[in-house]
């Protein structure tokens, strides 16, 4: 019983960051119809920015976090402006292949610049975990959960309560009509991609200190993000949040009760099962974002 409780607590912490990853990807996928293979790289990038700012520049952990989110925003905007804008209107396979090319180039660049050795990010939190009865959780992980929850709420407010958000939702519904109503569709695409990328960077910046930082860390993260998006339904933010927690639960229980070797297989199994039995996702609501 206490083992199960511990798994549930871990699920909560892991699920928060998974939800961040999923929201970023579902926005890009839903609004721009782009299968974003660079999502995992942005996750890696966020973690490395965290490492550099904290370790090399010696800045505070809490200053580094918004910096890495901002860096993710900028890199995302750059990718959108240089690669995706010229390809607007071409078929989804071409865009997908270009994103794969970008992913390979960027991941190899990470490896080239920072080397393959895993790095760890120092944190200001005490090493001793917080123990409540049989369950213990580290302060760092609690902070990760809180920060992820805050970012999820912020994104939700941005999409549902601001002008930019309503322009995004309008573009998702029908970009021609949105353009006729005076929405700057190009700007919306760039900000959507930048927003999604900054959320991936945030997830990396939060999980990087929990584990270690290495160039290939984003590969699995990207696939997990796809699993979450498929679970939650295209462009569905609430679905992505729930999907993130379901995936985290499946992984925790799979690793705990089946075999830790198959932990990362859970995401793929979920993808295959959902697409075969419920191709619209568990919470289909594809007609709008939000």
């Amino acid at each position, binding site marked *: 019983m206490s083992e199960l409780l511990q798994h549930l607590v871990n699920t909560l912490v892991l699920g928060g960051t998974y939800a961040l990853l999923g929201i970023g990807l579902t926005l890009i*996928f839903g609004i721009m119809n782009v*299968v974003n293979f660079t999502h995992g790289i942005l996750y890696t990038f966020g973690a490395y920015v965290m490492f550099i700012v904290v370790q090399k520049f010696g800045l505070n952990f809490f200053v580094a976090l918004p910096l890495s989110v901002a860096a993710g925003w900028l890199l995302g905007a750059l990718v959108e402006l240089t*690669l995706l804008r*010229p390809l607007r209107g*071409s078929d*989804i*396979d*071409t865009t*997908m*292949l*270009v994103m*794969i*090319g*970008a*992913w*390979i*180039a*960027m*991941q*190899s*660049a990470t*490896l*080239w610049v920072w080397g393959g050795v895993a790095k760890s990010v120092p944190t200001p939190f005490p090493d001793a975990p917080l123990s409540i009865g049989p369950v213990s959780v580290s302060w760092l992980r609690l902070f990760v959960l809180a920060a992820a929850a805050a970012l999820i709420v912020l994104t939700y407010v941005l999409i549902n309560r601001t002008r930019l958000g309503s322009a995004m939702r309008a573009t998702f519904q029908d970009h021609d009509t949105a353009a006729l109503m005076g929405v700057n569709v190009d700007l919306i695409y760039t900000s959507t991609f930048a927003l999604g990328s900054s959320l991936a960077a945030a997830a990396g910046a939060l999980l990087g200190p929990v584990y270690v930082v290495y160039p290939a860390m984003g*590969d699995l993260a990207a*696939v997990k993000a*796809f*699993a979450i998006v*498929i679970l939650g339904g295209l462009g569905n933010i609430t679905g992505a949040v729930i999907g993130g927690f379901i995936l985290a639960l499946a992984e925790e229980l799979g690793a705990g009760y089946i*075999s830790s*070797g*198959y932990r*990362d*297989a859970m*995401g*793929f*199994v979920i*993808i*295959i099962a959902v*697409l*075969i039995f419920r*191709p619209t996702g568990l919470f289909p609501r594809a007609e709008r974002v939000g």
Partner: protein
Amino acid sequence: MRLILSILAIAALASVPLWLSDPYLLNALITTGIFVIGAMSLNLLLGFTGQLSLGHIAFFGIGAYVSALTSLGFDVGLPFGIRIVHEPWSPLAGFVMAVLVSALCGYLVGRLSFRVRGAYFVIVTISFAEVVRLVALNWVELTQGPLALTNIPPMSVGLPGLGEFIFRTKLHNYYLVLGVAVACYLLIARLVRSHVGRAMRGLMENETLAVSIGIDVTKTLTLAAVVSAGICGAAGSLYAHYIKIIDPEVFAFINTVTMVIMVVAGGKGSLAGPVVGGLIFGLMPVALRPVMAPEAQWIAYGAALIVILFIMPRGIVPALTQWMPRLRRVRRPSFSKRGIEESA
């Protein structure tokens, strides 16, 4: 004209070992040739049915593992106390088993994943490859996991009256790969020019229209997947018996990407495309090795994919045939002549 070109190309490739003796380059050519076979099989799906399979390396890896295990033998316990003990068979039997098992996997994956299209199909195929990789990594009793299967025997063929011929040297393997590649090329060429091949293209151009004239979507796509997976399994088998060691890294996503780059760069939907793209991208690391660090090579690889998609979205071979009016003039009349004959 095209026949002459093809024969010239094969003759040129067959003559390579006569003037090239550097074992490093010959090795690069053999592995490139194996990947070209994989790329040709991917082209059958991507270029002729329009389905982008990003899990194609799974069939390659399954072929490699099946062939290796068939020729090495295994002893594995299953649930409910069942034990399967397999005595080693000949590498040729391994090759046949590799093709059959890969084709069967192609059938199963095709039946399941052709229910979805576009981005979803891509993601299902990636997931399939990753699940297979994780099984190869974790089912240590069968696959040795990360310790790899070693001492895989070289390919051998029993010739009636002449005894057993073993493909021991690089030279032997070069001609083996070339032979299998030509056979696969002819098989794919035959298939795409047949009735079924036209149905595939019809599905790619406009699925709704194709269905309305009575083309069976699932059957056609599954057939393409079965043939494609079988050929890719054959390539995997050649790889296993040439390299002689197989570990789960064979399933790495980057290997699928390599095949996709070969097809897209060469020209999807063109028979010669994967061969041209494969030779360029397979030998690119050899050319770049003296001037670039390995990581920088991969950056160049990714950048090359992007550049090619931007300037030649249809690939090198279609772009060349468009630029060279001579080749185009030769191709067009043969096409229109047939049209005239049919209408007459």
